């Protein structure tokens, strides 16, 4: 059981800044996220798109914002638990116990939900048969490359993941790349490599067409694609790799006894606490009158929520509001060495 002051669910920009706001108040936190890295939507959905409304930062990309925040919270040495989704939240004598899908357990007086729109999960193929073959012959990501050697592989999608894996796996397998339109959206270099491999026969490209059905009894045997002109084609294949991006699913959050409004958690605007004391919701996942889903709103929300977290985690201490410019305690927490005048 990992003991801490605040369990932060979600490592997006708001979850990361929560580490900072808690850290300068002397509170420890542990961060849990279902993705394999920090950044949340900023990294998954728009790593290279510029953001123009972060105060005092005229322009930055999702990736840059994430990296800056990681640098800003480095002194607090928070632990990150990636690739883990929080499944259960239970009360235990005024504290909270949190369990993840990997069986890890945490306990703390506070939980800060900075979960955005929920956890990211791959967008799956919409066929019933697809569930049957998932993990055996239908995959939404590649973990172990060796499983994909000496096979007939059909890759669906037109973005970077589809193109990158087509290139990589074509070294040892026969690849058919299938996309709904003729244009692919990927790095120019990757596209020209793909074209070269198409000429040499290592990759077959089928466009513009979409998957219409899959066949196979014990294992996948073939699939059928339908072209825009109505023509159909059967392709023999062992493996389908499908790259249609990630979806955001609210998931287990809905089962934690929190008051919800559609897919968001209702909070008060004094400290962004939910209907359960010690559980806070901040960023896109929370709602209150006038709520705006902006990163900057999330930053404000964690600043206020962290004060209440302090009161709950240190019931015998008095909370003192301090500025980072002058407070020696904060400077120590930030690891800033005293400068000689």
């Amino acid at each position, binding site marked *: 059981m990992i003991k801490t002051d605040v369990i932060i669910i979600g490592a997006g920009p708001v979850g990361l800044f929560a580490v900072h706001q808690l850290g300068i108040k002397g509170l420890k936190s542990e961060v849990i996220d279902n993705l394999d890295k920090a950044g949340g*939507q900023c990294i998954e959905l728009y790593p290279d798109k510029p953001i123009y409304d972060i105060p005092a930062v005229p322009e930055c990309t999702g990736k840059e914002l994430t990296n800056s925040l990681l640098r800003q919270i480095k002194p607090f040495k928070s632990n990150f638990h990636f690739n883990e989704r929080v499944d259960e939240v239970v009360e235990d004598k005024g504290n909270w116990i949190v369990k993840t899908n990997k069986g890890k357990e945490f306990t703390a007086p506070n939980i800060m939900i900075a979960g955005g729109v929920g956890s990211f999960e791959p967008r799956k193929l919409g066929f019933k048969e697809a569930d049957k073959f998932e993990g055996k012959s239908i995959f939404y990501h590649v973990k172990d490359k060796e499983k994909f050697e000496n096979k007939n592989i059909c890759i669906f*999608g037109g*973005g970077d993941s589809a193109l990158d894996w087509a290139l990589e796996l074509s070294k040892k397998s026969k690849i058919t790349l299938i996309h709904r339109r003729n*244009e692919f959206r990927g790095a120019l270099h990757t596209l020209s490599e793909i074209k070269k491999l198409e000429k040499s026969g290592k990759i077959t490209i089928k466009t513009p067409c*979409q998957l219409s059905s899959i066949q196979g009894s014990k294992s996948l045997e073939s699939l059928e694609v339908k072209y*825009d002109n109505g023509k159909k084609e059967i392709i023999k294949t062992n493996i389908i790799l499908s790259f*249609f*991006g990630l*979806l955001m699913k609210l998931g287990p959050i809905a089962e934690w006894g929190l008051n919800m409004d559609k897919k968001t958690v209702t909070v008060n605007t004094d400290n962004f606490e939910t209907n359960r004391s010690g559980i806070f919701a901040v960023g*896109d996942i929370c709602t209150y009158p006038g709520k705006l889903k902006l990163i900057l709103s999330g930053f404000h929300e964690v600043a206020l929520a962290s004060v209440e977290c302090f009161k709950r985690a240190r019931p015998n201490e008095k909370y003192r509001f301090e500025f980072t410019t002058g407070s020696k305690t904060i400077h120590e927490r930030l690891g800033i060495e005293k400068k000689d005048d």
Partner: protein
Amino acid sequence: MPKITYTDHQGNSKTIEVEKGLTVMEGAIQNDISGIDADCGGSMACATCHVYVEEKWLDKIPKAEEAEVDMIDMAYEPKKNSRLSCQLIVSDELEGLVINTPSKQT
């Protein structure tokens, strides 16, 4: 206010007056039209507000920019008349627009 008709995959229609300047997605969310999820809130990042625009309207609405077309790749069962409703801004020109929502968004 322009009237927008939302028809679901079973053919049930609802016609709503949507304030000019709002998007077709916002019109749906504010009026509890089912079939449009809009998980990302309109930042063209999720494709869960995917709709089919009735053919005769395709030429009358501004064309999709590249980023929208890229995002439609991710949508559930995209077709030639697929659009993201978060990118369709309601104006007088859209009076009477009919859109069909897909059988599901994910």
